[in-house]
């Protein structure tokens, strides 16, 4: 007799019931199931759905090495001080060549391992094309249904325009580190634009004040300067500025409530659908060759057809459909 769940031999509703009861082994197995996707995942999520929508979903993103994991570790401690339960989804990159990954975010979150109010799960990005947003959002749903009050999603080290996390999180925090670029970098479009909260971590670095000033100017120059984006300094390794960050996140979330969380959820679903549908089209298209597609490609190569016109023609046709 074992209480360890083997999802393959269970009905989705059995596993869902155990997840909702907060059984850790079941939560762990449910995460593996939804991460893999497919029919078992869909059934399980359906069975969990009515228990979702309660957790606050916080996204933490930023360039590699700015201190995201350390910040998340400090944030867990802060939330636990307020007796709130916390889940962390820590994403690290998969190798595009072998599919393997080193998931090392736990190295900075060691102190919370044995705390029953904390559930940390490492996720490999397993390719791109919207798959990551999809897997992350499913895992977040499982943790939400399990009754965890806060779900922190720590992204892979992001570049300037990787903004997938806004597909998934209620509140997105963008973490910067001092000295990673001049004021022109701060003006560029992309990641910084999607921040609900901006953090300059490693604030004990002498360059930190300069970086804060540059980001302040950037915020002031925005056309939507009325949208107040809190800008905070933290030194996560020493837990400096973390209570202030937790306050800022609370406030951002409360503001969201007033604006209507439901609408935000719909927007998120729309972005998620767009990302995933785009990924499906791209994958199918890359795997398809046929007479009609070849005609289209030949005309493009010959300069008779520009890419945009070809793309619209493609979407209207059924060349890329496989079923």
């Amino acid at each position, binding site marked *: 007799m074992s209480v360890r769940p083997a999802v393959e031999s269970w009905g989705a509703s059995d596993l869902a019931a155990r997840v909702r009861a907060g059984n850790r082994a079941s939560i762990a197995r449910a995460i*593996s199931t939804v991460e*893999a996707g497919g029919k078992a995942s869909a059934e399980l999520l359906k069975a969990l759905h009515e228990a979702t929508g309660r957790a606050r979903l916080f996204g933490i993103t930023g360039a590699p090495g700015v201190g995201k994991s350390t910040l998340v570790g400090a944030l867990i401690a802060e939330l636990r001080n307020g007796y709130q339960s916390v889940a962390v989804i820590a994403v690290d990159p998969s190798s595009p060549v072998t599919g393997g990954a080193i998931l090392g975010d736990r190295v900075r979150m060691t102190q919370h391992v*044995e705390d029953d109010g904390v559930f940390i799960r490492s996720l490999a990005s397993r390719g791109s094309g919207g798959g990551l947003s999809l897997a992350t959002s499913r895992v977040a749903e499982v943790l939400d249904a399990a009754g965890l009050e806060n779900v922190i999603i720590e992204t892979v080290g992001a570049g300037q325009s990787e903004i997938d996390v806004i597909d998934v999180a209620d509140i997105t925090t963008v973490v910067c580190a001092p000295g990673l670029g001049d004021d022109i970098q701060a003006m560029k479009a992309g990641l910084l634009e999607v921040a609900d909260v901006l953090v300059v971590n490693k604030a004990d670095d002498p360059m930190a004040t300069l970086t804060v000033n540059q980001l302040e100017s950037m915020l002031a120059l925005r056309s939507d300067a009325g949208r107040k984006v809190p800008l905070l300094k933290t030194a996560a390794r020493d837990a400096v500025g973390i209570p202030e960050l937790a306050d800022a996140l609370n406030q951002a979330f409360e503001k969201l409530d007033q604006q209507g969380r439901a609408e935000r959820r719909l927007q998120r679903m729309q972005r998620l659908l767009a990302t995933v549908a785009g990924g499906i089209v791209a994958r199918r298209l890359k795997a398809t060759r046929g007479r009609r597609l070849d005609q289209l490609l030949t005309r493009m190569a010959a300069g008779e057809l520009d890419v945009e016109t070809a793309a619209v023609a493609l979407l209207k046709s059924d060349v890329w459909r496989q079923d």
Partner: protein
Amino acid sequence: MSTSAQRPYRVLVSKIGLDGHDRGSRIVAAYLRDAGMEVIYTAPWQEVQALVRMASDEDVDLIGISSLATDHLLLPKLLEALRAADLGDLPVVVGGIVPDEDEQALIEAGVRRVFHPGSSRDEIVSTVAALAAEARIQRKTESF
């Protein structure tokens, strides 16, 4: 792409006890990564209960422990704790400096494989993959 058999194997690579020499565990972690596995890598100095918690929450298929300074003597405790947490079917392997006279006791305690210095990349990767595959099949056929 959606069946669990094709999911990459998930392996926890760690060190228990007070020794912090983690070069070996890093090298093995990189071997397994390059073989297409997802390696949950922790800092050294883990406690037995912390490892059990991580193995459970991360739903791993195997635990690999590096031991260079007698930490392998804690492995029977780890195996006992895994059994107590209903994770007795999870294979545990160890690599590093394990004196020959200790090996038999570890195997009897439930350690599935001891890798000594000079173990090749192929040997480590193929053994880990085989044990992880076995653990997955085992889990699928568990009865309740």
